[in-house]
């Protein structure tokens, strides 16, 4: 296995903010007509001036703290100069020296199953450019349209050190980052284009390529895998990897060169004199006090407080909404049983339907766990209730139990069915006596049929065995 070196730059839209980075325009532009969420400031009209959204900087500091970064004493903005149709001022207000946050780190689960520390180089604030829209694919479209609704969205760029060693680890890092951002309530990952990734990748000793603007975590994994294969093939044929910028074509699943280092930009960074220097050190204590419990801490607490297996605790804390759902259920039903049913069953059923945890009511989960605890339903029945609720075939657990006849059968009914089944299965009984343990399954099946699945299969097996040995 050759050494792979990956570093990520992640552009995170702080889309839980109400207004844009430097103007009062609303951030809720999704599903709006193009260019309807704009004003002289975010359109960069002549004479307009930016005003810092202080809340955005607070959010940035919050993320910096959660990523264990050092927050600078003071921070200010720079102009990053380049010409592009989506950039209406001809420069992007960004940061350069003295970014908001530096030198952080977070833990991820490495490929070898061990925890790995991934260093964060910096996190800085900037404004999102507009969006180019192409009819068809980027290389075939006849013309380009520009939508400035996104222009001026508050962005936080998080830059890692080149500490990641595989596409899978890159994915794990992104999952963890997303989880932290959602815990902080600064980010909604469900909105299109809310997180975009630039990935730098090289084989040890070789030059690196940068794959720009990949949206979606699956896209990152695919783009990186493609790049590793491409670079390895070049190496095998003794061709040097060119240091260049590449674009990930999501449709063809390949990366294509868009710019070589020779034509690299000189962004002519210089301080943005229209904005004041922010002395942020004094903001930190107040912001620190608002930091919520983060995923790692919550996981440890779940293990300690509820006695959960680490796997379950990890699964339940991966999303803040899921963790809150679990804790609400655990407050009124067996925490251990709730963990198993939420992490192992409900999550899978949600994923299968591409639904989020908000599609399921915590009261329903509590009722299901309680019914399981008291033996009113079987595990099979519980699964069926969950499915019925998700598929909108009912919205009351007790009614579903009744409608689908999921109530566990009374013992005497089961006993009678067992006696009948054993009496009716002379051949199977003979086979069992001749040494075939499997022959009992036939009788168990008959009992289940007679009780229409309401009996507990394990219990039935025990009863059948006892009856056969009795007669």
């Amino acid at each position, binding site marked *: 296995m050759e050494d792979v070196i990956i570093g990520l730059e992640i552009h995170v839209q702080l889309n839980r903010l109400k207004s844009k980075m430097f103007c009062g325009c609303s951030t809720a532009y999704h599903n709006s007509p193009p260019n309807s969420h704009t004003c*002289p400031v975010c359109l960069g009209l*002549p004479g307009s*001036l930016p005003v810092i959204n202080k809340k955005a900087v607070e959010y940035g500091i919050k993320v910096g703290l959660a990523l264990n970064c050092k927050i600078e004493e003071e921070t200010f903005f720079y102009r990053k*100069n380049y*010409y592009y149709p989506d950039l*209406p*001022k001809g420069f992007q207000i960004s940061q350069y020296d003295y970014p908001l946050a530096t030198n952080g780190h977070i833990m991820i689960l490495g490929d070898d199953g061990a925890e790995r520390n991934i260093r964060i180089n910096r996190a800085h604030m900037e404004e999102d450019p507009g969006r180019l829209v192409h009819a068809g694919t980027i290389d075939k479209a006849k013309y380009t349209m520009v939508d400035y609704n996104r222009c001026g969205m508050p962005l936080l760029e998080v830059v890692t050190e080149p500490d990641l060693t595989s596409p899978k680890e890159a994915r794990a890092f992104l999952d963890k980052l997303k989880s932290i951002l959602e815990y902080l309530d600064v980010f909604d990952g469900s909105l299109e284009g809310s997180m975009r990734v630039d990935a730098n990748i090289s084989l040890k000793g070789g030059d690196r390529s940068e794959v720009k603007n990949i949206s979606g975590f699956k896209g990152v994994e695919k783009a990186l895998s493609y790049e590793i294969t491409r670079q390895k093939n070049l190496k095998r044929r003794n061709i040097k990897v060119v240091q260049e910028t590449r674009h990930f074509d999501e449709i063809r699943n390949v990366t294509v060169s868009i710019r070589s280092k020779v034509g690299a930009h000189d962004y*002519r960074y*210089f301080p943005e*004199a229209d904005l004041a220097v922010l002395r942020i050190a004094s903001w930190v204590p107040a912001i620190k006090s608002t930091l919520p419990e983060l995923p790692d801490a919550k996981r440890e607490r779940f293990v300690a407080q509820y006695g959960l297996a680490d796997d379950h605790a990890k699964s339940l804390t991966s999303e803040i909404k899921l963790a809150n759902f679990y804790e609400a259920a655990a407050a009124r039903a067996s925490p251990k049983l709730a963990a198993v049913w939420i992490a192992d069953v409900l999550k899978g059923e949600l994923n299968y339907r591409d639904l989020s945890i908000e599609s399921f009511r915590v009261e329903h989960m509590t009722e299901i766990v309680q019914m399981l605890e008291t033996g009113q339903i079987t595990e099979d029945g519980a699964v069926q209730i969950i499915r019925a609720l998700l598929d909108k075939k009912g919205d009351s657990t007790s009614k579903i139990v009744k409608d689908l006849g999921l109530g566990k059968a009374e013992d005497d009914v089961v006993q009678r069915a067992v006696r009948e089944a054993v009496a009716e299965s002379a051949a199977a009984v003979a086979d069992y006596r001749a040494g075939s343990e499997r022959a009992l399954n036939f009788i168990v099946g008959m009992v289940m049929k007679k009780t229409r699945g309401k009996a507990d299969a394990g219990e039935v097996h025990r009863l059948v065995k006892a009856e056969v040995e009795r007669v």
Partner: protein
Amino acid sequence: MLAELRNRLRAESCEEHLLQLFERIEKSELNGFTTLARECALEEARQFDKNPGKGLLAGVPIAIKECISTKGIETNCSSRILRGYIPPYDAHVIERLKAEGAIIMGKTNMDEFAMGTSTETSSFGPTRNPWDKEYVPGGSSGGSAAVVAGGEAPCALGSDTGGSVRCPASFCGIVGLKPTYGLVSRYGLVAYANSLEQIGPLTHTVEDTALLMDVISGHDRRDSTSAEGERHSYLPGLHDGVAGLKIGIPREYFGEGVNKDVEKAVWDGIHTLEGLGATWQEVSLPHTRYALAAYYVIAMSEASSNLARFDGLRYGLREGEDKDWHTTFSAIRAQGFGPEVKRRIILGTYALSAGYYGRYYLKALKVRTLIKEDFLRAFKDVDILASPTMPIPAFKIGERINDPLSLYMADVFTVPINLAGVPAISVPCGFSGRLPIGLQLIGPHFGESKVLRASAAFEAATAFHEAKPEVI
């Protein structure tokens, strides 16, 4: 003058007054106005005649420099690249003017994007000096100064990045103030060099400048560099005189390179103030000789970035067939900008480039700090400073336009003020032949009251502001 005009308009007809001004403008050879908002202004005048408001400038017509955003009125910075651009919003100062009842007459000619000292770099052709049409009116707010001096508008707004209000005020024999950086909101001022510039009034009298400052100054949260604090009035105490006022004479602002007539007129002015009870002493601003270099590096660097937005995509010039992005925007910029603007964009781009940034831009910022410290030190000993506004009277149209360096040199006494961010005024103090000369009075940060008080005292003791050019 404006207060008097305000009362007269109330008694007579504002519409009539405006019609007379527009008639005068139509016959004018000054080329001071670029766009007239005739119909809109006349409509407002009729409204005023029906129901005169109570604002500080109720019914008063005003001319606005091309680079100040006016809703519904073309704002093109006298550049081809912005022809046809009609802003959807008013600059802060325009909102303030309208709130106080002023009537926007139209827009005035300027050096393209305020880059110049003579109004010759305008794509509309040069504006002429009302005192002698062969001469430049100064720049870059040459249109605003010429229309006021030439009687086409009672007052105007200009902008001053390195002397662009004071220079044309000096050349045209009127009053022009560059306020402290941050005193007047820049929201809506099309940026040339945003860390240096301020909007300022151009008027016949000091009192008129004070009145306009009362209207346009004050905090605006849309400009992050706008100073906080209560709105201030410059009218009370304006005529309190200069008894005991200590005036510093910066030695670096006299001597070599200064026209003899200018030097004499300025010294006469200083002696006039002395006669009114002020005292003067020589002071030194030792880093003055580095000011021009620092100013041009900073201004051009900022300009290279500020003017990057003019790509023809969203507004302004759009000519020829669309090709790929780089070809198209490059072609538009090549056609849309004049040679002086291109020169400054290219020099500024160079100064900010990797490898040169430290050598030019950062060094210029250090010089800027030293120059600011020069002023802070001087103002420990004196209340205000006095100097020539320009080292020379107006020059002939065409005389210097092909020698940019000599044009840049003419800004030697005005640019240090912008680098330091302090306020300075130019008041008429004499003539060289037919051409006016300006006395520059410089105050400490937010020391407008002192500067205006000294100017008012000087004006009251002299008659230069009463002289009128013979124009049609």
